[in-house]
């Protein structure tokens, strides 16, 4: 899960990473209250999970309450690359002397943590990596050993941070590593990390991605859960515990297993169609899950046909078949289903479905054949 900047900064604060004083505002008047509290001048920042906020007019400096009102009114409701701003972060403006970059993430190739530090902060780090790779100092950290103080000091020096910034930056790096490891982050990134004119080093932005698998040991994450940006379909799917991603095509997809679900999207695309979603019902899915999956897809107005692609391993095909029968009785499905059922208990599954096969429930032997039929139905406007 990606955090908003303000959530990332609050998360940083738990681990002692210094940030500017500030607060969250959902209205113009709240923005003024936060500005008064933080102390002028302030920066009013749009809270959206997308880059390029500054260029889009989502970050503004304000010297007094009137300016806060003007900027907050302009930014709230602003559409930044399809993300509508609903929340602001208002913080005391820093006098910046220099901008740096620091991050921790997993290097999947080396199977070690990767620390990156650069004296060229405040810009897109991927761009720095291509145009000036030498400007980024990299350090692999073995999780068994952790990050030593000596290694932290060495990398801030190697990255060319200004002499006066180095001791604080090294200490901050230690805190960022703790946040990354103990805080179960996939990514903990500060860009820019700044040195102020009065010689303090702190985080001016926060980009944090949490590892959803670690939610069980972080009850404090619950406060982030309600703030995810999901579309209506994704919200419903999440409620039902389904692994769903909304897309824009006309063939609804249900498959078991992430790989098969991805592959189903690909095959639908190859035979000239487009998928309305990614939906993995997971291993061992039962009739209830199958019925819920069909319900979610049924709410998507763009869907014209539904391709159910199951290869039973842990998942039993008879359970899947029961779920489809149950859903047919429970939900008024707008679109026809094309079903491909293979693997564990496939025969029993086909047996259960045999009385229900019609032009609304088509069975095909192979994945490719089923994809072709689902696409043909979608293009013929399968909706009743």
């Amino acid at each position, binding site marked *: 899960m990606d955090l908003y900047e303000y959530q990332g900064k609050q998360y940083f604060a738990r681990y002692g990473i210094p940030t500017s004083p500030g607060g969250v505002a959902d209205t113009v008047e709240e923005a003024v209250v936060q500005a008064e509290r933080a102390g002028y001048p302030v920066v009013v920042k749009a809270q959206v999970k997308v880059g390029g906020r500054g260029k889009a007019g989502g970050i503004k400096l304000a010297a007094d309450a009137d300016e806060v009102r003007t900027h907050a009114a302009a930014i709230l409701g602003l559409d930044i690359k399809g993300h509508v701003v609903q929340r602001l972060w208002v913080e005391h403006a820093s006098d910046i002397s220099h901008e740096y970059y620091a991050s921790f993430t*997993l290097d*999947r*190739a080396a*199977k*070690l*943590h990767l620390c990156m530090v650069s004296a060229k902060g405040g810009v897109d780090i*991927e761009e720095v990596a291509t145009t000036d790779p030498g400007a980024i100092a990299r350090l692999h950290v*073995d*999780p*068994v050993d952790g990050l030593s103080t000596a290694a932290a000091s060495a990398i801030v020096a190697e990255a060319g941070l200004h002499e006066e910034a180095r001791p604080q930056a090294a200490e901050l790096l230690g805190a960022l590593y703790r946040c990354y*490891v103990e805080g*179960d982050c*996939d990514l903990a990134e500060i860009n820019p990390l700044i040195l102020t004119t009065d010689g303090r080093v702190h985080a001016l932005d926060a980009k944090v991605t949490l*590892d*959803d*698998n*670690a*939610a*069980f*040991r972080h009850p404090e994450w*619950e406060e982030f*859960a309600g703030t995810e940006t999901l579309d209506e379909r994704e919200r419903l799917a*999440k*409620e*039902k*515990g*389904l*692994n769903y*991603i909304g*897309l824009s095509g006309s063939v609804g997809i249900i498959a078991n*297993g*992430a*790989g*098969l*679900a*991805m*592959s189903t*999207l*690909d*095959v639908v*695309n*190859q035979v000239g169609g487009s998928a309305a979603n*990614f939906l*993995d*019902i*997971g*291993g*061992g*899915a039962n009739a*209830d*899950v199958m019925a819920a999956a069909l319900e979610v897809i049924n709410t998507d107005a763009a869907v014209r046909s539904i391709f159910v692609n199951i*290869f*039973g*391993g*842990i998942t039993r095909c008879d359970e899947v078949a029961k779920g489809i029968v149950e859903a047919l009785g429970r939900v008024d499905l707008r679109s026809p289903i094309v079903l491909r059922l293979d*693997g*564990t208990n496939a025969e029993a599954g086909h047996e259960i479905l045999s009385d229900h096969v019609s032009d609304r429930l088509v069975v095909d032997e*192979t*994945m*490719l054949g089923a994809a072709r039929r689902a696409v043909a139905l979608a293009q013929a406007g399968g909706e009743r």
Partner: protein
Amino acid sequence: MSIFVDENTTVVVQGLTGSQGRFHGLRNRDYGTRVVAGVTPGKGGTDVDGVPVYDTVAEAVTATGATASFVVEAVTATGATASFVVVPPKGAPGAILDAAAAGISFIVCITEGIPAQDEALFYNRLRRDYPATRLLGPNCPGVISPGKCNIGITSGDIALPGGPVGIVSRSGTLTYQALHELSQQKVGQTTCVGIGGDPVPGTSFIDCLAAFEEDPDTRAVMMIGEIGGSAEEEAAAFIARSMTKPVVCYIAGVTAPPGRKMGHAGAIISGSQGTAQAKMAALEEAGATVALNPTEAGERMVEIVKTLS
């Protein structure tokens, strides 16, 4: 022959007394796998359908001389759970290290939902303290050498013994799909390895490709990858450098949108990294045959196998 496991492999099932452990452990035994013991702390002295249960892996190994371990701590089912919580696979890291400490040389972990920080930690702990131990997974379907040994959750009846094809895959259901495509065409498999879709897999594509290259009975390899990370690109470099046997590849996720996790924790396109297109190009460049869907991969493999004898 086969890689990693064969008819002589003896298996301890950690978590045998749980519902998933019992189901899959006994299913593996029914397939012919030599399941010699189960481990569940606190349940030592009991048995599961005749398989003795011990409190610790060390005890089980001493008593039975088992060489492989099958860690069934928790299989996360995407059932009617609350939206934000996954079934906590808290015990898996400890179980893996216990198995390694007990001298187990091959550990299969099917547990889904282990935090990446835990995976990175136990991977490096194993690499340092138990270099002779191979971990397969976590979050993988396991390994099957058809007719000899099946450790994991793969349905044994979709595999066909006798070779000549080795399969290695990052995805569970696509592994079954690959087995199915080949078996239907009467092309057998030496070993089929599911390495799992997590960010820090214990066994990599390269480990499997190298083992297949060494295995005299494996004549060709099918490799199934997916978006995210750079494991396929690394495999491509290995294929170009060291593989003499033909390799047919399929990469899932050509149409996956960037920035979204496609089910597997490891399946995410970050920036311009990890796209299916880049992986396919690298594999093609390396001399592998790249198919656009699992069916086509099966067909291309059948053509290649015909030219082998």
